[in-house]
């Protein structure tokens, strides 16, 4: 039987395959869901489940959300649970902190992460230093993973696809600690297949656990958020040339699942990291440092390489913007350099 021989060869992968088959018999078929819809579903389910959960932010209620992520929620839950705030980030972030301290579960939405900088004092000083739950936010032009990931007391998650979005927002809401969720606005409208298990109201993605999106043998490629998709594209191209990449979707920035990355590096002997943020003091830098500190260092056949945004303020003109973010060709180039091919 294919299942048994599979077990002998690749335990982890085949077990999850078995699980998938079992669910397939009893649950509805996989359906296409955009990241936006997944976030909406996740929040809707949690609002229904626990009356202490509420959403506040600019335009989240009557406007259905600036990016339509909270569409329909105000109609369903009303003024007490879905609250439009004035344009006062510092103010309403503070209100969210206070509400959480009093035992509620606020979802505090910053329209773009740049706006959250106005409230960063509340997020870092109040939120991180006290135990409570906080932010969902849309990313603007730059990636704030490194900013928030730097801070003890916060948990930071970064979804790539719809499954990630739904599972992580639900876990974030149920977590008693402040969780910053880095949503990528460009991903909102992208549809992904939502597997049967992710359609359940109890579907949660554990915070602090990475996922191997694509197994491989030659090189470990670690990314979070939108770049995960670019890495998978690069992997497909390279597969035709006989290079098999293992693509890891971090899902959580802090606490980082370094063990999954280490296990992978110990298998492939090569590592590249990919992120949208700037290179200095970033996510990739942290991964490289930790690899050096742990058992995987001795398994590296070449230095680890980082693929990042360019070290410039985000420019406006299209040609400049395109060259400021990591593209598939940059990832392929870095992989080949690392493998010396």
């Amino acid at each position, binding site marked *: 039987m294919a299942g048994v021989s599979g077990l002998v060869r690749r335990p982890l992968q085949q077990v999850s395959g078995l699980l998938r088959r079992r669910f397939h018999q009893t649950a509805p078929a996989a359906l296409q869901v955009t990241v936006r819809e997944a976030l909406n579903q996740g929040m809707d389910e949690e609002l229904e489940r626990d009356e202490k959960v509420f959403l506040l932010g*600019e*335009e989240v209620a*009557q*406007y259905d959300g*600036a990016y339509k992520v909270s569409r329909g929620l105000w109609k369903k839950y009303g003024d007490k649970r879905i609250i*439009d*705030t*004035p*344009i*006062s*980030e*510092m*103010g309403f972030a503070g209100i969210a902190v206070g509400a959480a301290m009093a035992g509620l579960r606020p979802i505090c939405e910053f329209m773009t992460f*740049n*706006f959250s*900088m*106005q409230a960063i004092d509340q997020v870092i000083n109040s939120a991180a230093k006290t135990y409570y739950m906080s932010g969902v936010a849309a990313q603007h032009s730059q990636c704030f993973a490194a900013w928030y990931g730097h801070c003890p007391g916060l948990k930071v998650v970064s979804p790539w696809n719809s499954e990630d979005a739904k599972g992580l927002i639900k876990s974030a809401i149920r977590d008693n600690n402040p969780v910053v969720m880095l949503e990528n606005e460009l991903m909102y409208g992208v549809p992904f297949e939502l597997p049967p298990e992710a359609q359940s109201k109890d579907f949660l993605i554990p915070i602090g656990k990475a996922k191997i999106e694509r197994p491989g043998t030659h090189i470990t490629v670690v990314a979070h958020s939108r770049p995960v998709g670019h890495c998978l594209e690069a992997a497909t191209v390279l597969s035709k040339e006989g290079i098999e990449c293992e693509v890891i979707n971090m899902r959580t920035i802090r606490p980082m699942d370094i063990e999954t990355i280490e296990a992978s590096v110990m298998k492939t002997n090569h590592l590249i990291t990919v992120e949208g943020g700037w*290179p200095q003091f970033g996510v990739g830098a942290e991964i490289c440092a930790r690899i050096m500190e742990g058992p995987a260092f001795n398994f590296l056949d070449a230095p680890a*390489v*980082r*693929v*990042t*945004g*360019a*070290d*410039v*303020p985000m*420019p*406006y*003109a*299209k*040609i*400049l913007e395109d*060259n*400021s*973010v*990591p*593209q598939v060709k*940059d990832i392929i*180039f*870095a992989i080949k*350099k690392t493998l010396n091919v």
Partner: protein
Amino acid sequence: MKKMLVAAVSRVLSGVSQKPASRVLVASCNYSNDATFEIKKCDLHHLEEGPPVTAVLTRQDGLKYYKTMQTIRRMELKADQLYKQKFIRGFCHLCDGQEACYVGLEAGVNPTDHIITSYRSHGFCYTRGLSIRSILAELTGRKGGCAKGKGGSMHMYCKNFYGGNGIVGAQGPLGGQIAEAYNMAALWKLPCIFICENNRYGMGTAITRAAASIDYYKRGNFMPGLKVDGMDVLCVREATKFAADYCRSGKGPIVMELQTYRYHGHSMSDPGVSYRTREEIQNVRGKSDPIMLLQDKIVNSHLASVEELKEIDVEVRKEIDDAAEFATTDPEPALEEIAHHIYSDNPPFEVRGANQWVKFKSIS
């Protein structure tokens, strides 16, 4: 001079049989040099007296204000078109409807005074001295743009104009931060006019749903304030002159609330009709359009003729079309410039690209 004019006009008219020559002749020779208008009295907060309730408009100023407002209007409509054609990307916040605010303000201050504003900045960009070409080319991200294509809609600057700021509150802090700004300005008697362009909505939320008090001109608290009709360019001008004099005389800062209206939604991604009715927008256009109000004043008091104003319209249209042509054909900035101007006054240094093998040069 008069005889020459008569001759020219009759030559032109010889081809046009319908219009009686006499009517046109009277109109072209009898323009007033100036006219006096009554303007709305401003509501006052902590002020004994306010701006005058009459204003004098010269023919020259009338034509200038008309042309400037019409230029801003056409420029914004062109930007709308270019955005829909995808020549302009990112965020774009248009100010059509609010022209009297920008023109009136500039008319009330000196070019050497400093102005800073929010993301709805295109009107100010023009009144402060940027050319239409450089504004539109910046919106389309070309090297002929005022920020060489690197800034876009919210980051345009020129002498004594500090933008264009993307973060709400960065220019004159909102909420808690504005209270801090008011406090320090008043404490240190800074000569500063805090202006609120009250267009009745904060993004998609009506002011009545966002503000405990919508009397923004009073929210400076201990700071005096004025409520101004922002659709009347003369009202704005007189109020600005009054406020500027107040500041310059050392009395300290002052708040000015301009009651105005934007025809477009908050930004190009907001249709602007889910939180307000089309009737409301139509109503404002029909009764309070700033350009229409000025036109009526000019024509009814014989400062200029309808035809003259129409000629200005034609001129403006042409200028905007030229600028749009430039903005869509000018090349994008060169890739080498991606890392330029990160620091000022710095010797050149290397900047990392997407990986350690991609390097750009940074020149100040």
